[in-house]
C-alpha cells in the first residue's frame, strides 16, 4: 500500500489546530519503525489543513472529552458490561483492550447508541448522550468504524466519504430537489474535503472505484476516512487491524498517529497487543464486563492482573 502515500518531502509544520497539541505521547518500547520528528512530516500541509477537525470543541486539550460513567449493559440475564467508568481526554489515543468477550464491542456499541445501556451514562463534552438517536450521536461528534467492514458497496470510495460528510450538511430535500445555492455550495466543498480525506488515508487515486471492488486494506482505510468525514470529536476504531499482516499493521499505526497529530481524539479497540502498545497513550482493560485497569501502556503491560487475564492468549492472535 506504500504506493498510495504521496511522496512529499515538504517537512513543514503540521496543521493549525494540531499545533496546540501536547508533544507526542511517550512511545514505549514497542515503538513503530518509522519514528520521525513529527508523524505528519510526510503529509502535505494543505492536506493536513483540509482534513483537520473543523469545529469548536468545548473542552480544552487534555481535558475530559468523553466520560463513561458506571455503564452497565444487560442482555436478558447476561451482564455484558458491569459498571464500567473511564474517560477519554481530548487529543489522546485511548486503547480499549480485553480478552474475547470482555465487553469491548458492547461498550463501544453502548457508547455509539447501538445498544441502550441498562444503567449508567456516556457524556460527550459534559452532555449526556442518553436517548439520542444513533445518527445524532454521530453528528454530536462520536464517529466509528466497524470491526467487520461495512462500507456502502455500490458506492465509489468518494461517495462513501461524502455520505460521512453529509452528517454535517444542512441541505433540505427541497433544496436538493431544486439545486438551491446551499446545496451547490455543500456539494462543491464535499468533493474537496472528500478528496482530501481520501488523500489523507492514502487512497485518493481510487476515489472513483466502487468500494466493494477495493482491496481489503483500502476498504479499512476508506472506513476510517468515512468516519473522519463526519468531523468527529472522538474517532472510535473497532479492531481496525483485523485481518492485517504485520506490514499493514505498521502502516495503520502510522495512519492512526497521523490522525491524532491532525487534531483528532482516538478511541482504539484492538485485539493486537503490539499495535495497541505501540500507538496508544493510555489503555483501559476490560475483563468479563468489568474494568480491570486504566493506565499507560507500560504500566498495563506490567500489571499482573492483565497478564493473568491474557494468560494463555498469544499477544498477537491474528498475525
Amino acid at each position, binding site marked *: 500500500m506504500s504506493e498510495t502515500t504521496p511522496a512529499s518531502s515538504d517537512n513543514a509544520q503540521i496543521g493549525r489546530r494540531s499545533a496546540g497539541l501536547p508533544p507526542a505521547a511517550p512511545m514505549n518500547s514497542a515503538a513503530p519503525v518509522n519514528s520521525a520528528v513529527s508523524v505528519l512530516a510526510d503529509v502535505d500541509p494543505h492536506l493536513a489543513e483540509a482534513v483537520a477537525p473543523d469545529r469548536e470543541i468545548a473542552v480544552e486539550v487534555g481535558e475530559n472529552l468523553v466520560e463513561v460513567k458506571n455503564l452497565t449493559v444487560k442482555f436478558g440475564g447476561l451482564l455484558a458490561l458491569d459498571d464500567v467508568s473511564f474517560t477519554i481526554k481530548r487529543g489522546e489515543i485511548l486503547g480499549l483492550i480485553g480478552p474475547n468477550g470482555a465487553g469491548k464491542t458492547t461498550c463501544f456499541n453502548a457508547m455509539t447508541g447501538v445498544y441502550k445501556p441498562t444503567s449508567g451514562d456516556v457524556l460527550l463534552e459534559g452532555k449526556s448522550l442518553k436517548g439520542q438517536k444513533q445518527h445524532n450521536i454521530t453528528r454530536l461528534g462520536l464517529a466509528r468504524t466497524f470491526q467487520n467492514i461495512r462500507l456502502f458497496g455500490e458506492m465509489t470510495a468518494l461517495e462513501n466519504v461524502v455520505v460521512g460528510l453529509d452528517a*454535517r450538511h444542512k441541505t433540505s430535500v427541497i433544496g436538493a430537489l431544486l439545486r438551491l445555492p446551499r446545496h451547490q455550495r455543500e*456539494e462543491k466543498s464535499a468533493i474537496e474535503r472528500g478528496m482530501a480525506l481520501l488523500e489523507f488515508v492514502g487512497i485518493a487515486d481510487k*476515489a472513483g472505484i466502487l468500494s466493494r471492488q477495493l482491496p481489503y486494506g483500502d476498504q479499512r482505510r476508506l472506513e476510517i476516512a468515512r468516519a473522519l468525514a463526519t468531523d468527529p470529536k472522538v474517532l472510535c476504531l473497532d479492531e481496525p487491524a483485523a485481518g492485517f499482516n504485520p506490514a499493514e499493521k505498521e502502516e495503520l499505526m502510522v495512519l492512526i498517529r497521523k490522525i491524532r497529530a491532525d487534531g483528532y481524539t482516538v478511541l482504539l479497540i484492538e485485539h493486537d497487543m503490539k499495535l495497541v502498545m505501540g500507538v496508544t497513550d493510555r489503555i483501559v482493560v476490560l475483563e468479563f464486563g468489568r474494568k480491570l485497569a486504566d493506565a499507560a501502556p507500560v504500566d498495563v503491560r506490567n500489571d499482573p492482573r492483565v497478564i493473568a487475564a491474557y494468560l494463555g492468549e498469544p499477544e498477537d492472535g491474528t498475525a
Partner: protein
Amino acid sequence: MSMVDGPKVSAGAESARLGADASSVRTTAKGTRTQRLRDRWNDLTRPQQWLWLIVVVVLAYLLPVLNIPILTTAPGNDWPLACFSMASFALIAVGLNIVVGYAGLLDLGYVAFFAVGSYTSAMLTSPDSPFLHIPYLWTIPVAMAVAMFFGVVLGIPTLRLRGDYLAIVTLGFGEIVRILATIIPAMKGQVGFQNVGRPPGVAADGIPIFANSNGTPWYWLTLTVILIVLLLVGNLERSRVGRAWVAIREDEDAAEIMGVPTFKYKVWAFAIGAAVGGLSGSLFAGQVGFVNNQKFDVQSSILFLAAVVLGGAGNKVGAVLGGALVAYIPLRFTAIADYKYLIFGIALVVIMIFRSKGLLPARQRLLAYGHQAYRRIVGKSDPLSQPPGALPPSVDPGAAVTR
C-alpha cells in the same frame, strides 16, 4: 435473526477479506458490455452528450407520430394510446424505482398510490361525484399531495419495521385501498366515476384535444412530465438525499451510524415515490376518463415491480425502459394476453437468477460534481492543486444517467 439489529460479529475478518476480494474479481469480469457503453458515453464532451440527448428526446416526442411499422401495435391497439400507456407505466416505474431501486424498500402495494391519484382526480372532476369540482389540471397537484399524504401515513408506522415486514404490510395496504374502493359506498365500487375531467382545449373538429381517444397529446403531456420528474429525481440522486437512500439500501445500520437519519429519508423516499404514483394515477384517470375499482389489484403492483426490476432497479433510465416494455409487450403481442402474467412470472425468476441487476444495471451518480472530481484523478496526480470554486457548475439532464 438476532433481535437487536446491531453490528454483527462476522465469522472472521479473514473470511470477510476473502469475500471482498472474490466479489471484486467477479464483478470486474462481468458487465463489460454495459461498461463499454458507459465509457463511450463518458468520453463524449458535454455538448456532444447534450446533442445526443436532444436527438433522443426529439425521437421520443415523435414516437406516436412516426408509427414505425415494426413497432406499432396498430392492428389491435391504437398506437398513440399505446405510447401513452407505455409512458404512464414508465412514469410509475420511475416513481417506484425511488422506493425500491434507490432506498431498497420493497413496496408491493405501489398500486395503492396510483389508485389514490386516480380516485382523487376522478372524485374532484367527475359529475358522478358529490364532491367539490375543480379543473382537471388542478387535480394533478392535489392527487400528488393526497398520495404523498397516504405515503407518509403508511410510512411512519411501517418504515420502523424490519425490512421484509414492509413488503407484507405494503402488500396489505395495496389490497386495503382496493377493498375500500369496493366496499365504501362513496367510492362507488365497480360503478365507478364516469367523465373524469381533462385538460382544456378543443380541436377544430369540436373534439377535445385531450379526448380519451386522442393518445398523442396525452402522450406528450406524460412524456413532458416524465422528463421533468427525471430531472428532479436526478437532482435528488446527486445529492445527500440520493446518497442517503443508497446508503440505506446498502447497509441501513451503517448508514444510521454514519449520521444518516435513516427513518426520515425512508419516509421521504416513500412520500416522493407515492407522489409520483399519484401523479401517474391522475394522468391515467384523465386519459381513460373512467375510474372504478377494477384495475388496482395486486397483479398491477407486481407488474410495476417487474418493470423496475426488468429495467434495472436503481437506474431511472432503466425504469423508464422497463416500464415502457412491460406496457408494450402485451399491447404489441395481443395474442399473449392470456400468458402475460405467466411470462412476467417466469421472466422475474429468470432475470433474478441470471441477471439480477436488470437490463440496465444501476450505477447511480451520487455526487453533483462528481464528474470533475473523477476526471481530475485520471488527469492529474495532485487532486488538491485546483482551488475550490474553480469547478464549473454543471446542470445534468436527468436522462443522462450513466457514468
